[in-house]
């Protein structure tokens, strides 16, 4: 605890963060993991604060996770859901967000189908903005909870061989995971159908870690310590779809294929899983699968982020000595 980074004002992306800042956020998540084990999980830490959830893209799991994180910290939650949003009536994103802002939340958690949308909003609002997923750009809290899961299971983040399987080109989870783990010297093999594996992915980060592309799943799993399986989106605008049977034939993670990886290799999945599509149920339920811990850790990480961004008053009152003021 020697270095306390400068106050985070938003959490928009993993890419600009330093390894020390990420480690700090993971450390700050540990007490919240602990709280999940209490019989009474509710704190009053953020009582009186309001968290605005602006989800312009349908999402049940992440929205519930952030909502629960806020309530367990004692905060109130303000919800905007895409289906009923005025965005459908032609109101611009900016106006929708300004309307939310006028109700004075302490922060906004935002998910949007356009890459760059949270950055667009954050540059125009005073309050902190947390990116809960923007287009195909980043999903910072997902990467953090994946990192926490890996750190807990394997003892450290440094130097692992990570294989990511799926539609990498269109995955914000993949990008955030690659940005985060590359800061800890991990090595990557990206695997999926060739049209979703452009060459530019090899230079995604400036960390200088090896990133290789491989269209053959068995080859890509060889030597892997960690396997991240991505969801398959059935239909994508502006893209001819790949027949699902093709995908299953070539890319489903089965127990037999998983044997190509290191023994005990971790299997992570951002959820929701489609058993029998991208992942064999046997693998999903095996001891190597981390999916349930990912969910619990997601709650802890999101609580830590909320605490970090809004869990303080204004700047410390200089008239009171912080160490001894309120003993």
């Amino acid at each position, binding site marked *: *605890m020697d270095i*306390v*980074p*400068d*106050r985070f004002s938003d959490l928009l992306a993993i890419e600009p963060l330093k390894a020390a800042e990420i480690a700090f956020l993971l*450390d*700050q998540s*540990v*007490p919240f993991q*602990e*709280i999940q084990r*209490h*019989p*009474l999980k*509710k*704190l*009053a*830490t953020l009582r009186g604060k309001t968290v605005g959830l602006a989800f312009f893209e349908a999402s049940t799991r992440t929205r519930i996770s952030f909502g629960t994180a806020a309530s367990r*910290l004692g905060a109130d939650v303000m919800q905007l859901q895409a289906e009923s949003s005025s965005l459908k009536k032609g109101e611009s994103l900016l106006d929708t967000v300004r309307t939310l802002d006028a109700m004075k939340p302490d922060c906004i958690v935002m998910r949007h189908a356009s890459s760059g949308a949270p950055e667009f909003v954050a540059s125009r609002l005073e309050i902190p903005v947390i990116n809960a997923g923007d287009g195909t750009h980043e999903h910072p809290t997902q990467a953090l909870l994946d990192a926490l899961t890996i750190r807990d299971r394997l003892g450290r983040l440094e130097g692992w061989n990570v294989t990511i399987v799926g539609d990498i080109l269109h995955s914000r989870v993949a990008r955030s995971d690659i940005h985060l783990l590359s800061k800890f010297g991990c090595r990557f093999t990206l695997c999926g159908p060739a049209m979703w594996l452009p060459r530019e992915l090899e230079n995604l980060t400036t960390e200088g870690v090896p990133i290789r592309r491989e269209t053959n799943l068995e080859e890509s799993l060889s030597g892997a310590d960690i396997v991240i399986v991505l969801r398959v989106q059935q239909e994508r605008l502006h893209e001819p779809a790949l027949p699902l049977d093709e995908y299953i034939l070539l890319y489903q993670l089965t127990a037999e294929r998983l044997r190509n990886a290191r023994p005990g290799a971790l299997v992570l999945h951002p959820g929701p899983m489609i058993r029998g599509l991208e992942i064999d149920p046997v693998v999903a339920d095996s001891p190597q699968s981390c999916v349930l811990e990912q969910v619990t850790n997601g709650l802890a990480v999101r609580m*830590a982020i909320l*605490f*970090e961004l809004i*869990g*303080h*008053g*204004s*700047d*410390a*009152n*200089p008239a*009171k*000595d*912080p160490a*001894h*003021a*309120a*003993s």
Partner: protein
Amino acid sequence: MPTLEKSQLMSATEIDRTLQRLAHEIVERRGGTVNLALIGVRRRGVPLAQRIAHAMRAIDGVDVPVGTLDITLYRDDLSMVAPQPVLQSSEIPFTVDDKDLILVDDVLYTGRTIRAAMNGLFDLGRPRRVQLCVLIDRGHRELPIEAAFIGRTVQTSDTEIIEVRLAEVDQEERVMLVDRVS
């Protein structure tokens, strides 16, 4: 924040003697160490609790369990803390249900830290009894909270600060009275 030392209240030896005396007092008044556990309030309450438990082992031959409690999440005054409060974990490796707990902290002042500590404890379960042991009681209570076991009572004014230094945390060992310098 600039301060000016006014006087030394306790030396290393005096601290040690006081902790020994507190350990004896607790054991004596309770009639033993059965069902007893100590909870040190971070930061400096933790080494104090550990030392008291150590002293109790010498007295009674029993290992009294010690837990640590981080109260940051339970504070009602987060704005008073540094702009970026750093969380540590609480570690209480035993159940608090039905236990006789003694909260241990270095200085008792307004009482808010102890109120937060109690909120934290009661989130974990239902202790049978909670008592408070402090090294220094400096008065100026803002809540109806009292310590059952007190090392020393010191009259202070609002501009004064009690600084406790413990070897485990500060690499020196003494208690000082200092003045805030504006």
